[in-house]
């Protein structure tokens, strides 16, 4: 097979990989914020539910979560297609790690900010969304960026439940053409480029968000 053909098949796979990232990332962010805030502010029973979710998804392996959702849920009468299983498993997994990012960033906002906002008689929701969160967000960006890269890497697991992502296409091509060196080399390069693109984007975002905070940011 010619090199150009190989690259074009792999590009199709890369599109699927990017689609999965694009769907799982919002889910992960949603889970991270909701359970991160529940973990911090909700009444105890809700907190405990959050802890169970976080510990379960961080304590077991992502691949097993994926298999469990894909192979075991049908036994409970819930049949979902491979793509949904992939997005749900990866989103919940990365989201569980994200809760700790949200929690850590909120807790790292200096205590004086809370005290000042209480002194100025802000309501508790104004305090959270107008004072604490804008500052916490800047702190969240770098660790969330790392998680986004982890997500891109984790999408390779979906190839094992037969989704035609980049890794799946590579494995398929390797089995049929035996040109393993070029194929896996190109695939590694593709993932690397995606990660570098994320790194670049995250730095821009960080610079943008840290404007007006009086701390300059890393790259401004």
């Amino acid at each position, binding site marked *: 097979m010619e090199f150009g053909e190989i690259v074009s098949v792999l590009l199709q796979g890369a599109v699927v990989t990017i689609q999965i990232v694009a769907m799982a990332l919002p889910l992960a962010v949603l889970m991270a914020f909701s359970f991160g805030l529940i973990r911090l502010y909700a009444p105890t029973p809700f907190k405990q539910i959050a802890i169970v979710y976080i510990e379960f998804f961080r304590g077991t392996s*992502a*691949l097993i979560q994926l298999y469990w959702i894909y192979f075991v849920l049908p*036994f409970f009468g819930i049949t979902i297609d491979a793509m949904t299983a992939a997005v749900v498993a990866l989103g919940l997994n990365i989201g569980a790690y994200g809760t700790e990012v949200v929690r850590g960033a909120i807790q790292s906002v200096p205590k004086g900010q809370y005290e000042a906002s209480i002194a100025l008689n802000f309501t508790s929701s104004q305090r959270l969304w107008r004072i604490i969160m804008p500052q916490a967000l800047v702190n969240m960006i770098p660790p969330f960026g790392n998680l986004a890269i982890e997500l891109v*890497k984790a999408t*390779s697991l979906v190839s*094992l439940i037969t989704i035609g992502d980049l890794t799946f296409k*590579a494995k398929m091509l390797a089995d049929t053409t035996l040109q393993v060196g070029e194929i896996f080399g190109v695939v*590694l390069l593709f*993932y690397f480029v995606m990660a570098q693109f994320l790194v670049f984007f995250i730095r821009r975002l960080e610079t943008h968000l840290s404007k007006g905070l009086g701390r300059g940011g890393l790259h401004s």
Partner: protein
Amino acid sequence: MNGFHWDWAFTWEVFPMILTAAKVTLLATLLGSIFAIVMGLVFALLRRSNSRTLRISIYWVVEFIRSTPLLVQIFFLYYVMPEFGISMSPLATGVFALGLHYGAYLSEVFRSGIDGIEKGQWEAARALNLTIVDTYKDIVLPQAIRPMIPATGNYIIAMFKETPQLSAITLLEMLQMAKIIGSENFRYLEPFTLVGILYLVFSLLAAYGIHQVERRFPKEGFSLK
């Protein structure tokens, strides 16, 4: 669908098989961590070399390994290395891949641990005319190890949780065993759930163990002799 109910008899039947496979998982993790620690130290020390070219190339090697998926690296080692005349068993490939991948992560831990040692310590070692080897062995590493323990431990737990990916190159670890049992009996519920629970138990135990190691470790450092 024989579905929803949990079959205890079947659970007890497959439990010993999964425990046997757990030994392979733990062996891969153990050997992988040893290799990762060695690789991490090598990368970290090379990052401090005097040659700028070497420093920059190691930076990109580490960056490349860290930002590409372990699964693809496993495939690469398993399928491409034989082209260069290096054929390895699934276990050896797994240990090599895990070690390289997490060695890249650990190099950053070790690097910041070494950077955390005060400048005065280096200067004092220099003033006492210690060799580079002695400086690292007797002065720097003994002080740097304790702060490195939590992060190193977390990466080893993370590595443990990535060992199921080795099932993709037919290593008979826990997940592969569960998959085989599942496809032979058409029941995935019990084997997969058991494996999940075992992972949870092992990682919680390991987290506790690492905390204990860190607590017992003398704050003032210790002699490597």
